[in-house]
């Protein structure tokens, strides 16, 4: 049946016709007159429009905070959408997140407040059901770090955040101290209703010449893509959303990957970590950190909860951005991708995917099905992200270094990949060459770093000058070397504020 069905709070909404680019925010404010959700930026960067999507995961409700401004309405098929209007308790009291914000004087102008409330609400609800494993008691420092992550995607211009964090400590404790809840009757009802509207088949909806296609299998996807090779492939929408809200592009045909179970896979197979095209950052993050602990700082720094809850790793590859944060990391780790079409599968080294600015090795009818990362690499690995602001900021430079030494401490393998330094994510060929077979020492590193100026001709733009980008790139290689040599030396500041000893 070609109907998109979702719960708006408690109300079942059924749409037989919908524009594939109608955003949840526009729908809420213009069509449903639900004005509690605010527009602050329409690009997923301020969080004023934060809403929560509830889905059934393992027979329990899981809550995700997302930016309503860049989530397309049709992708809510089979889910529950919760806004600030929906979170009153049954007796019309304030939710603990709301109450503690009132008690802590955590709102001033109040415009960002519903967004903060919803970010907190998602975290609170998930903690009630202990979907996350949490240590029993935590330091104030650790709690502040968690709250910083929860709110990294919510900007407030009035309060300076202090009272919001203070409120957070109160409601986090409340959530922790609530005995792990059985699923309430109300939740059981929602779970049943969501199961009843869970999309079972592929769907196609049209409106005013625009088409939304929601395939239910890889086969259906390859068929749809063969029929419409120019269609826009949509996963998290954290980039495509902006084509609509910022560039005001009209997209004719949109194919949504989020309802294909096979693309949601995270698997370890044959020494490879395989991540499917519809896996969000939030889903991939624990597994990535488990296998590559170095990535923790990096992953938390460059996104917000809302963006991690929507955006996908593969999307960050597929859009071909020269400043995408994952490609340098994955290239340094020698990752491969699988391109799939009706013609079958085509494996490709990730670094070969990027041909030139705006040009990738993706044939008509193909999509990236998954990325494969070799596990347990024997060498040293370091990743760095440089931006004006620590959180939720696009990098001026990102760097990922992988170096293997032989027993003489000579460099055997060097994979040094940078973002923001060229028109594509790119390895530093001359610099790598200068390292190979050389002793891993300061002189080698100095000489190799000096060649980065020949490897790259970065641009000057509003994020950084060419000179800064080059200087930082050279310094990062030196930093990586020092961190390997002298792990006790403090060489980096954590996004949480502490010092990092490599």
């Amino acid at each position, binding site marked *: 049946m070609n109907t998109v069905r979702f719960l708006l709070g408690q109300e079942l909404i059924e749409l037989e016709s919908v524009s594939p680019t109608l955003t949840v925010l526009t729908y809420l404010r213009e069509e449903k007159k639900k*004005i*509690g959700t605010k527009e*602050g*930026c*329409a*690009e997923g*960067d*301020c969080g004023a429009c934060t809403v929560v999507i509830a889905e059934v995961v393992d027979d329990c409700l899981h809550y995700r905070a997302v930016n309503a401004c860049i989530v397309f309405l049709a992708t809510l098929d089979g889910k529950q959408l919760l806004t*600030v209007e929906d979170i009153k308790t049954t007796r019309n009291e*304030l939710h603990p997140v*709301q109450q503690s*914000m*009132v008690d802590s*004087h955590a*709102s*001033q102008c*109040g*415009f960002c*407040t*519903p967004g903060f409330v919803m970010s907190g609400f998602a975290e609170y609800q998930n903690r009630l059901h202990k979907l996350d494993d949490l240590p029993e008691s935590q330091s104030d*420092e650790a709690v*502040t770090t968690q709250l*910083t992550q929860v709110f990294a995607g919510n*900007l*407030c*211009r*009035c*309060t*300076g*955040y*202090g*009272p919001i*964090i203070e409120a957070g400590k109160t409601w986090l404790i409340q959530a922790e101290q609530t005995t792990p809840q059985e699923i309430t009757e109300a939740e059981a009802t929602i779970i049943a209703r969501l199961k009843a509207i869970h999309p079972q088949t592929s769907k196609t909806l049209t409106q005013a010449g625009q088409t939304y296609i929601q395939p239910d299998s890889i086969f259906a996807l390859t068929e749809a893509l063969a029929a419409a090779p120019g269609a826009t492939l949509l996963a998290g929408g954290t980039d495509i959303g902006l084509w609509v809200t910022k560039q*005001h592009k009209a997209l004719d045909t949109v194919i949504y990957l989020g309802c294909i179970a096979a693309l949601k896979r995270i698997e370890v197979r044959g020494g490879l970590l395989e991540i499917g095209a519809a896996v969000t950052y939030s889903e991939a993050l624990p597994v990535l950190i488990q296998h590559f602990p170095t990535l923790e700082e990096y992953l938390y720094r460059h996104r917000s909860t809302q963006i991690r809850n929507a955006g996908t790793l593969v999307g960050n590859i597929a859009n071909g951005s020269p400043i995408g944060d994952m490609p340098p990391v994955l290239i340094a780790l020698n990752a491969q991708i699988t391109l799939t079409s009706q013609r079958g599968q085509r494996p490709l080294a990730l670094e070969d995917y990027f041909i030139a600015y705006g040009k990738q090795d993706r044939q008509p009818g193909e999509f990236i099905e998954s990325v494969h990362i070799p596990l347990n690499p024997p060498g040293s690995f370091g990743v760095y992200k*440089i931006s*004006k*602001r*620590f*959180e939720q900021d*696009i990098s*001026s430079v990102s760097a990922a270094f992988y170096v293997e030494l032989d027993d003489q401490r000579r460099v055997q393998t060097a994979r040094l990949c940078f973002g923001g330094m060229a028109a594509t994510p790119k390895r530093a060929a001359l610099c790598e060459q200068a390292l190979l077979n050389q002793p891993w020492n*300061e*002189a080698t590193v100095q*000489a190799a770093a000096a060649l980065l100026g020949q490897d790259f001709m970065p641009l000057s*733009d*509003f994020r*950084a000058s060419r000179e*800064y980008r080059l200087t*930082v790139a050279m*310094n*990062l290689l*030196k*930093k990586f070397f020092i961190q390997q040599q002298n792990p006790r*030396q*403090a*060489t*980096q*500041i954590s996004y*949480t*504020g502490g010092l990092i000893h490599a």
Partner: protein
Amino acid sequence: MHEPIHRIAAEHIRAGQVATGVGASVKHDSAIKHVRGEALYTDDLPEPRDLLHIYIAQSTQAHAKIISLNLDAVKAFPGVVAVIQASDVPGKNDYGAVTEGDPIFADGRVEYVGQSLFAVAAEHIDIARKAAALAKIDYEPLPALINVRDALAANSFVLPSKTFRRGEPEAHLAQAEHRLQGEIEIGGQDHFYLESNIALALPGEDGDLKIFSSTQHPTEIQHCCARVLGVPDNAINVEVRRMGGGFGGKESQPALFASIAALVTHHTGRPSKLRLDRDDDMTITGKRHDYVIRYDVGFDGQGQIKAIAFESASRCGMSADLSGSINDRTMFHLDNAYYLEHVSIISHRCKTHTVSNTAFRGFGGPQGMVAIERVIDEIAYQIGKDPLAVRKINYYGAADDPAGRNVTPYAMTVTDNILPEITAELEAAADYATRRAQITQFNRENTYLKKGLALTPVKFGIAFTATHLNQAGALMHIYSDGSIHLNHGGTEMGQGLFTKVAQIVAEEFQVEIDRIKITATTTDKVPNTSPTAASSGCDLNGQAARNAALILKGRLAEFAAQHYTVDAAAVRFTADGVQVGAQQIAFNTLIQQAYFARISLSTTGFYRTPKIHFNAETGKGHPFFYFAYGAAVSEVTVDTFTGEYKVDRVDIVHDCGASINPAIDTGQVEGGFIQGMGWLTTEELVYDDRGALRTHAPSTYKIPACGDRPRVFNIHLRCDPNRENSVYRSKAVGEPPLMLGISVFNALNDAVASLADYRRHPHIDAPATPERVLMACEKLRAQKNPPEHVHA
């Protein structure tokens, strides 16, 4: 007279007093509505029937003649109802608040990228936006001046330059034991209120209009719409219940959008809404001025300043707007907390072909203070002293200073200098000396990470420097059931003004605050209001509301005295009711009795600030009612590989007089500090060579996020009563704390200076982005280790 003042300060809420009166940390009146998403902003109001949506077409050129503007295709686009341009303005095509020069629609010439050309009103905003793109515009480009240096070189100014002068600075500079010269660039700042600019116009009878505007200055919106339409002020009624942030960005700027909505409604007879998206808001509206400030200072071996000459130049943009007063305030604050004996201050107001810069929290003051704080650090590094020691010996003296070191460059005597006390308190609370030693140690032991520490003071003058603005009105009714309706000319932008003014009324009547209805600011209740700006909202409107309450109390006391035949002096309003002689009457009962006795239970209230005057010709006078003080210590860590940094710890002591609401005042201090820190660190406005702003949304313009807040952040409010007779002896607190953020900027410079053993100042301009910090690190390292001596 000191006794009762101390009583108010020390015993905010005494037994037997109402719990929600002056001194209580009452919750923001809208707090519950905020968290429930039920607080209505202009875009949330129910939309009227037949509403039109407006899009503003903008100039793509910084400076050009418009050869032709063909709007045929725009008008023909389906769904377009009206297209309005300069020739459609029946009155004056200008929204300049103080002087002319801000056209509603460009007329033959554009002077910045983003300038309004024409407006399209359509059934939906998408239609209006699409149609606007169909205009055929021929420009003849003209030479464009983009930045301050271009403008200075071309002698391009929006207003004449001004000078303050005292003593013989040139002679004393020449004679000074030490002398140094330098220059600092200080970047601008976007307000980034979360609610972008918006106006909603509703048609009324006889061509009257009701305008809902997100504005700090409803009266200005009224004047401007009336002027644009060529109708009297009484045909326009402006209302604002709340703004989603203002910060000065909604003082003069909203008039453009309200005027355009008024024009559309005037021409079509239909309601209209103009809501800017983030990018358009940031492109079209003015920002904090960026400055280049040069200094030449002479000082003795202890670092005491003997003579100083400042030459300040700011980017005003294409028009004067409020730039005159803003640059005046820079001149008033280039001394910050320091006595400058022989001094000259020259101020240039540069005209550039960029957006007209405007009011922003601090109003030009912060830039002046950044400059003098830079000078102090440079002096300290030159003579090898801790900058704090140099600060202290340059502080203004006490009221009875024998050497007369207590007179500002504009001849106002500083009579209430509490900075030495604040500094001592802060040094102790922050453990300054110990931490200075620890940081020096840390920097000796660490090659790659460097720490910095700075204590900077704030002395900020309170009052509008345009004297006539220092007035306010209120309107108060008591209904026969005893409920109170409160209205005044101040606007609520999140700062808690409505709550504080209601607390003052609650205090006067000794009733709880929930009896008082807080109402939207509208020009038909209180006329001729001043903007809610210059931190004066509570000082002015609180006094006006208090005046109204005192008038009504007077009438009620007089009535009660007659009714119960006691002396009027024996009538007191208490938390338990009205004490009339030996009897206690419930407030509601007395109100009913007064009503039946035909006593008027409605009044206006009024206030004008005493003591202030200023002679613009001589540059001398008493422009401020009093000063607000504060100081902050910030500690930072810098990664010298990348220039990235974190603020580790901040300690603040801030003076807010006898606080009317300590929770709200603390919120202003904390939020102001973070906003000031953002201005001087990550918030970078980048214009390209064509004059287009390239950082016009949060993806590119980075205000502080949650994680940028220092992990250790101690704020101490100093609640000693104001020595001037301000409302309940409180002090203004909106702007002053912003400048506490300067301590972060100086701490970053301090951290980098450690690379050259604090002998050389790194001269990082503001904002100190990671790029600027790293480049300063590289420069100092290169100076310390010239390349030929590098050991590989």
